């Protein structure tokens, strides 16, 4: 199975990535995917002007690769793609793309959701937002822990 995991510091084009992934997996009946983007809007401190994702190189990419391997073990997939940004982003910028190709739709959906839940609350990223002119670190949300417990 083709498995592509990338951690990138620059911008990327999720639609183009997904098009290439779909073309590479013509034998799969379907591709479930998730695109996460910097939400345009305000947090409790005002309009969010920027978002930064920090990582720790010795852990972050190896952790994502282990996550992809776990998803492959769990569902019969034809392909899996995980692309995650780091660095500074602006509202509307893509942060993450997960795509899972499988013969059966439910496997593709489950693998994509599994990967997203683990990227959110079990991967080595730290996020801060700039709102009202000031940077503030974002604390993990209880919902993210609830999401990941489903897969235990």
């Amino acid at each position, binding site marked *: 199975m083709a498995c592509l995991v990338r951690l990138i510091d620059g911008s990327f084009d999720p639609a183009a990535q997904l098009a290439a992934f779909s073309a590479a997996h013509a034998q799969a009946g379907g591709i479930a995917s998730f695109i996460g983007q910097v939400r345009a809007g305000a947090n409790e401190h005002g309009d969010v002007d920027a978002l930064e994702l920090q990582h720790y190189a010795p852990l972050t990419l*190896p952790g994502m690769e282990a996550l992809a391997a776990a998803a492959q073990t769990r569902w019969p997939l034809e392909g899996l793609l995980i692309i995650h940004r780091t660095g500074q982003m602006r509202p509307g910028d893509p942060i993450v793309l997960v795509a899972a190709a499988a013969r059966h739709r439910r496997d593709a959906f489950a693998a994509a959701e599994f990967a997203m839940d683990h990227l959110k609350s079990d991967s080595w990223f730290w996020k801060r937002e700039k709102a009202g002119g000031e940077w503030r*670190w974002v604390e993990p949300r209880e919902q993210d822990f609830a999401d990941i417990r489903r897969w235990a």
Partner: protein
Amino acid sequence: MTLRLVFLGRLEDAAGVAEREIAVAGSLDAIMAALEPELSAALSDARIKLAVNGILVTDLASLTLRDGDELAFLPPVSGG
């Protein structure tokens, strides 16, 4: 010996820098004693994990540090 300390997420704000070198005897207690008390307190939060040379420490009690080791202090993550 000299160790390299890496502060991730909000610990970077607490430390004032993302990384620094420190010359101390080779134990975590010695490092904590050598740091500013506010920073030591922030690093002692039970939710903070430690990686040495990119490997997550699961058993702090049996931790042995060597000259040149990189210690990363990892607060709770908030990704995606």
